[in-house]
């Protein structure tokens, strides 16, 4: 399961991930992180059984946590199932199923490569 963390100004300098790992002993994998001086956006892969515990641990530290259940939002009226999103996705979220493009939940890291790559402008990130 992937969790998206929004780290607010003020706490971005704390070793949040390290302290949550020590507390929960969860084997988390950092899939994407963009952190600047004032805030941060981090996507973590967390084992399903530890998900609730990790989420709560972050929330106690003031981090807003959003589980990434829907990979990307797709406008079904715009999508023509061309496949321009399929091979540019770093985590292989999209695949063809009888030539319809389907998205697997739990793989997307919200990087946005598909959003720019979609010629029909049919895709949107969950939290943008």
């Amino acid at each position: 399961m992937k969790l998206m963390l929004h780290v607010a100004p003020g706490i971005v300098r704390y070793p949040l991930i390290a302290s949550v790992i020590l507390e929960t002993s969860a084997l988390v994998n950092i899939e994407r992180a963009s952190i600047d001086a004032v805030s941060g956006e981090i996507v973590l892969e967390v084992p399903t059984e530890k998900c609730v515990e990790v989420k709560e641990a972050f929330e106690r530290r003031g981090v807003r946590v959003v589980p990434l259940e829907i990979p990307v939002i797709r406008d079904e009226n715009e999508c023509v199932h061309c496949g321009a999103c399929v091979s540019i996705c770093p985590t292989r979220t999209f695949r063809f199923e009888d030539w319809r493009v389907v998205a697997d939940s739990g793989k997307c890291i919200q990087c946005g490569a598909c959003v720019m790559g979609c010629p029909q402008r049919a895709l949107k990130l969950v939290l943008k």
Partner: protein
Amino acid sequence: MQEKSLSEINERIRDGSARVVTAEEMPDLVDELGPAGAVREVDVVTTGTFGAMCSSGVFLNLGHSDPPIKIARAMLNKVEAYGGVAAVDLFLGATQPSEDRGIEYGGAHVMEDLVSGKQIEVEAQGAPTDCYPQRELETCLRLEDFNQAIMVNPRNAYQRYNAATNSSDRTMYTYMGTLLPGFGNIHYSGAGVLSPISNDPNFEAIGIGTRIFLGGAQGYVIGPGTQHNPQNNFSTLMVTGDMKKMSNRFLRAATFHKYGPSLYLGVGIPIPILNEKLARSTAIRDRDITVPVVDYGIPRRDRPSLRMVSYEDLKSGTIELNGKEVASSSLSSFQMAREVARTLKEEVEKGEFLLSQAVEPLSGVGSARPMKQTKQSPNVGDVMSRDVVTVLEDIPVEKAAKLIVSGSFDHLPVVSKDGRLMGIITAWDISKAVASGKPSRIAEIMTRRVHSARLDEPIELAARTLDTHSISALPVVDKEDKVIGMITSNHLSRLFARRR
């Protein structure tokens, strides 16, 4: 040899007894029945393709205003349409970007908006004459307000198309979509087994006047398309159709990121199974249609081809390139190509779509030659400076600083002992190292990911490299990667100033 006539087939279409299959169903039928059996059993094979067809556009007639205007320049939702055809005829091209929204909204989007029933804003500037005194006007029009909206597409329905990949070290944004660095992916276009021309590559049936499915309406083949190149199996079609009858299901505006607008269009051709030759040609499969995988990382016309692959390989989702599995995916929609072929099949079955006799077959000879360029722009080798000073990576920073000061240049290529380019160091890198108080060896502060130019490269490419990476100089290397010169933004600006 089993044969039948087009009028027999049309007779059956009229009385609802015609046997129609899609080009996807045909290969198995021919395998089972043999070509002669297939001619007896099948009357029509429907094909379809749905993908980016950049070379598309529409002639629009606005009717005459009062006082009349001879339109010289027209903007439709801020997208320029060509006004150099009579007074109130315009040609709107699919790839024209808008003045206000750039490539996110272009000619194709105006077409989709019109087909979707939306109103568009028209601003026209006239060239006043005694008979057309009006200087400018503004109006709002819907598709029904135009006298005619006739789509005329110079090049559609490519028989097949080169697959694209990228060997370079940066992501490339192309009309073949986003191509990831280091052969990160492969994009392809075309419907393969359903491709109209691939099912009749020798134009036994397709010709001038062939009635086709175009954007949801009935249209016609006007003739061979531009760059028609049947000798190399890259045939194209020029087609026309009434845009007023088209549907936004089969006509979709698109934007390729950092490239531009384009039009996704559904094109389908019904092929009458008149004889065994046509039964055989419509039995083609994805595995029979091959294309080269072309390296778009090389920004030249003659891009190197890495290997041949079939549409079956491309559709499998992975292609082996240089021993590595590379993900492949399409830019055209096979799902929609199927919908085109199936819709056309239903229309023929219902007797709504009769097949037409071509007036003349398409030419089996075409031309897709490179451009004749009478004014050659200089190559990097013509303008670069050859007195380049290079350094080895183990020299101290102070020594490099002295070289820069005495040589009055800002960049020092760093080379290996045998002269191969390893990195680059700038006056700025040295200043930074000095300011930080720990200047040591060049190897520690040089940029290793260095961009370079080649001797025989047109200066336009070197200029684009400088611009893309916001840098001001490029080492020039020979085939062995040995540094033989430097080209800087100064060289280019000097050249530009002289030209003026």
